[in-house]
């Protein structure tokens, strides 16, 4: 099968999705279920985190099992900054991205010397190290996590304490950053990255600095995950070690694979399906995890390319 290096994002899909997302608060207000708006914010910020992980897994061929480390680091930066009195989102959120990027640079520089399974394990090892560091930092809440004294302040007359405002801010941030990632994937850099995924040795022989490209991708993905973490800290009103736990890394990876690696919007779809499924199944049965496992298993066996192929296949048939 020919591999399309250019990632097309169809306006026929994106425009209606954005329209529905923009109108969602009106709908939840109308049916008087504000909870759904909170859930939607959660879905969006996980879609952002999963999309950033896909930059590594889908486009760079780097299966990182430690992505939650950067997500959690971003959350902690916002919480710690707020504790120290820095609540401005314009300072705290870029700071979260910066710290996560720095962590990704250090971890990536070492991890990228290994390949394949060993890369999976070494990223996991670093994420676990960060997890234990935060668990033991008693000054920052230790195992219980650190609660946010107040949500970040944006100014411009926006108050993040309102669920609707928070939702729109998350929607804007996610839409803009995902659009930027899309540009990145389709840039010269993105092409080189996909070339490395297909054949690293050949790219090296052609003269591309393979290691540097992979490291930059790792840092960018880490920074975006940090931003998603900063949003998550605001939503949960806290940062906790469980955000860095390997379970969380596994969940992000599952979202990416479920949606479809290497398709640009697949992971966002995967995050949406995963979180909505979790909510819906939990309403029906206490044992929702069993059903969820069964569904994931069915997807692996029946749809090897992920959920995104479902849309593509239908399009090809039609």
């Amino acid at each position, binding site marked *: 099968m020919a591999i399309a290096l250019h990632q097309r994002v169809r306006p026929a899909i994106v425009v209606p999705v954005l329209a529905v997302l923009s109108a969602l608060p009106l709908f939840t207000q109308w049916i008087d279920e504000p909870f759904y708006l909170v859930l939607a914010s959660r879905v969006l910020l996980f879609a952002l985190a999963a999309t950033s992980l896909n930059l590594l*897994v889908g486009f760079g061929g780097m*299966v990182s099992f430690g992505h939650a480390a950067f997500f959690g680091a971003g959350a902690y930066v916002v919480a710690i900054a707020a504790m120290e009195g820095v609540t401005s989102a314009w300072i705290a959120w870029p700071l979260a991205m910066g710290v996560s990027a720095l962590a990704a640079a250090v971890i990536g520089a*070492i991890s990228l*010397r*290994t*390949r*394949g*399974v*060993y890369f*999976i*394990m*070494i990223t*996991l*090892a*670093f994420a*676990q*190290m960060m997890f*234990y*560091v935060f*668990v*033991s*930092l*008693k*000054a920052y809440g230790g195992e219980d996590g650190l609660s946010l004294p107040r949500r970040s302040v944006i100014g411009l007359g926006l108050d993040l304490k309102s669920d609707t405002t928070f939702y729109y801010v998350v929607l804007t941030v996610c839409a803009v950053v995902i659009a930027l990632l899309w540009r990145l994937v389709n840039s010269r850099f993105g092409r080189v990255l996909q070339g490395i995924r297909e054949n690293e040795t050949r790219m090296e022989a052609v003269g591309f600095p393979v290691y540097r490209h992979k490291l930059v991708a790792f840092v960018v993905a880490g920074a975006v995950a940090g931003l998603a973490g900063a949003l998550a800290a605001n939503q949960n009103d806290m940062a906790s070690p469980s955000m860095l736990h*390997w*379970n969380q890394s*596994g969940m992000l*990876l*599952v979202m990416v*694979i*479920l949606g479809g*690696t290497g398709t640009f919007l697949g992971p966002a779809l995967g995050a949406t399906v995963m979180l909505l499924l979790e909510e819906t199944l939990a309403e029906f049965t206490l*044992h929702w*995890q*069993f059903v*969820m*496992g*069964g*569904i*994931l*298993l069915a*997807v*692996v*066996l029946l749809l*090897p390319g992920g959920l995104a192929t479902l849309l593509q296949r239908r399009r090809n048939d039609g």
Partner: protein
Amino acid sequence: MDPILVLEQSLNGLQFGLMLFLLAAGLTLVFGIMDMINLAHGSLYMIGAYLAAAVAMATGSFWLAVAVAMGGTAVIGVVLEVTLLRRLYQRDHLHQVLATFALILMSNEAVRMIWGPTALALDPPPSLAGPVELLPGLYYPAFRLVIIGVGLLVAVLLYFLVSHTRLGMLVRAGASNREMARAMGVRVSLVFTIVFAIGAALCALAGAMLGPLFAVQVGMGESILILAFVVIVIGGIGSIRGALVGALLVGMVDTVGRTFLPMWLRAVLPPTVASNLGPALASVLIYVLMAGVLFWRPQGLFPARG
């Protein structure tokens, strides 16, 4: 430093390392021969511990419980392998991760449905409940000594099985070059089913033996699974010898680090800093060990593939 304490902690490290070896042995072979990432390996450990606890509760016999757990888990392992995992061998690692992650969710929930959410108690046999005086002043729990004995016995048996039997030869051939082994007429799929059954039985053995020390509860498989992966990555994937060395290293470093690192830190640092830093550094130690090994020996200490 107190020599009794050093000795006691070394024995603890040895005991934990040997139990890790039971898990890592199966995992490394599955990984090495079929190139399959099986995250659900920890679930077999959990299932083994639950079976053991259930049988022990019903019959009162610990050793019968261990035997039933090993047999039952081996059967479950074979059923899983034949019906499901076999379809995944040719797939991408990512698909294997997703599928076996799904299996973790399902087995955790299945265990919760059958035995409920609260942890089960599994008591060691009463004759082994007390301590034994190993040296003057060194009392050590008899049950932990038995664990060490069982672990050593299994290690010797596995060594014999892998390096002195026909099955072992096929296993080694499969681990070092799967295609070549297949071309020479080895029925790799049958070898693999057998290996998987043995791996599952060893998981159950580890679960049953560690059950009295840790709680038998849902989720017990995941934390130890990570350690088992650390072990096989340190040892080199596909190598039993690597698994043994890696398991002992991890067991020792983890146990000894948890006891002595805070003490050493207290000697050189102010107490408040030391009490914060100690536990963190101790938990991080094995991951530092793994990162270090991968940095200098990216294929692990004993790579199976030449």
